[in-house]
């Protein structure tokens, strides 16, 4: 494998909450410009995995390298430069409800890149247009717009700072199938436009098929399978087969 090309490299990552082991030796790498989708059931630790990569949760042991820089065990302020190259679309949008829509989108530009407000607002409106929203929503508050629009604003906020990697936490969960497809298209086009790498976690197979260059399956704290969409369809791995067919029968045990 070409190590130079890896934007993110996760090896032997462990994380437990109390006695509950969530990540149990995860190995995963993301190449520059690649779109990787991690699939897995609810509560398998997908969100924990990407939060570890972004330094929001401290792993118990293992290694996470961003552009070859080891972040595990390094003080946050020394990693900040690397974290700044990453953007994230949160599952619930996580828009700041004390700020207007445009202030949300411009947040990174104003607070970090120190862009003057007027210029940041113009930029924010431009990015909003990219995700299919008009200038008329710019001054609304996040609670005044629909769930689908909130997802778009979250996406606009994630791409406004032109990150090199974008994380998508269940981008289509909770949306109707049509809106889900609109979001998939927006993810593809905005990631392409930036030339960024994308790491998406989802259990929506339609979405995964559409946006993935590569798919990895997380089960019981480990990546148990990786490959392209075609390889997935041909795979005879029983776990993968069960997950893509969405059957209750099979080796995957659901904890109730």
């Amino acid at each position, binding site marked *: 494998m070409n190590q130079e090309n890896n934007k993110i490299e996760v090896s032997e990552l462990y994380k437990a909450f109390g006695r509950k082991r969530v990540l149990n030796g995860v190995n995963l790498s993301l190449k520059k410009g690649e779109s990787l989708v991690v699939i897995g059931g609810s509560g398998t630790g997908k969100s924990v995995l990407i*939060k570890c990569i972004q*330094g929001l949760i401290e792993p118990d042991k293992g290694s996470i390298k961003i552009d070859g820089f080891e972040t595990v065990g390094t003080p946050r302020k020394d990693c900040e430069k690397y974290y*700044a190259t990453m953007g994230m679309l*949160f599952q619930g949008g996580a828009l*700041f409800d004390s700020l207007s829509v445009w202030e949300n989108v411009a947040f990174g530009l104003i*607070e970090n890149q120190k862009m003057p407000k007027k210029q940041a607002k113009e930029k924010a409106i431009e990015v909003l247009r990219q995700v299919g929203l008009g200038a008329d929503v710019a001054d609304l508050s996040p609670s005044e717009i629909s769930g689908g629009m909130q997802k778009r604003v979250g996406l606009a*906020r994630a791409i406004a700072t032109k990150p090199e990697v974008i994380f998508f936490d269940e981008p289509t969960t909770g949306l109707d199938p049509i809106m889900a497809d609109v979001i998939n298209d927006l993810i593809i086009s905005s990631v392409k436009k930036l030339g960024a790498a994308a790491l998406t976690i989802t259990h929506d197979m339609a979405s995964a098929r559409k946006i993935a260059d590569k798919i990895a399956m997380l089960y019981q704290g480990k990546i148990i399978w990786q490959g392209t969409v075609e390889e997935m369809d041909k795979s005879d791995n029983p776990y993968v087969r069960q997950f893509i067919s969405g059957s209750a029968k099979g080796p995957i045990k659901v904890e109730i």
Partner: protein
Amino acid sequence: MFQFKYPENFLRALGKPLVVFISRVGELSEFIARALYSCVTPPFYPRLLLKQIINIGFYSLPVVALTTLFAGMVIALQTHAGFSSYGAESAIATVVLISVTRELAPAFAGLMVAGRIGAAMAAEIGTMRVTEQIDALSTLSTDPYKYLVAPRLLAGVIVLPLLVVIGDIIGIFGGYLVAVYQLDFNPANYINATVNELQLIDITTGVIKAAVFGFVIALMGCYNGYKSKGGAQGVGEATTNAVVTSSILILILNYVITGLIFTE
């Protein structure tokens, strides 16, 4: 058989919160250290500080004014009932002055602000925690301690003393109203007695207490909100905890500070 159950349950009831409390002491100390560090290192957010000052100060003014007004009034009435045999106007003026400035204005302002602002802070920050807004701040390279916690702590320490000074004036005025209009004292004598008795230590005691209370209220609001988990229910718990812990701490610290200042 039954009498043995009680001590065991009692110990268990005492034991679990104790374990939780001790595990929290470490977490709380770390929170305080990070919060204080954030207050003194850039970047600073003056606009957010101003917003918090207005939030805490301006909107708390009515409740603080009302509580201290009636506190001053009731002290005047009660003192008159107790001291009437001596018939000394100056005694009432002095008792009102000292009890309002040293004890009642800071305690009432503290408790009122704890109920209003401590709860609001815990609810707001707790909601931001469970809806991942705090994580979102971090991913946008903004330190949540500097952006959320520091402005609230600083605003608490700045605003509560101001509220208490205003509460002092209103409380003393309340005493004056009762003395002059209900007890028919001579207004000039009453004012004279108040001014003659006024000492700097009365005001500074109240102001020091207020600054400490402001810190405690904002700290408990931010801490409980920041560490809340588990959706809407978690936020509700955080809000209750913030108000209960800061109210208890205010009453304990009120006693401790009085002890430190007035006993040799």
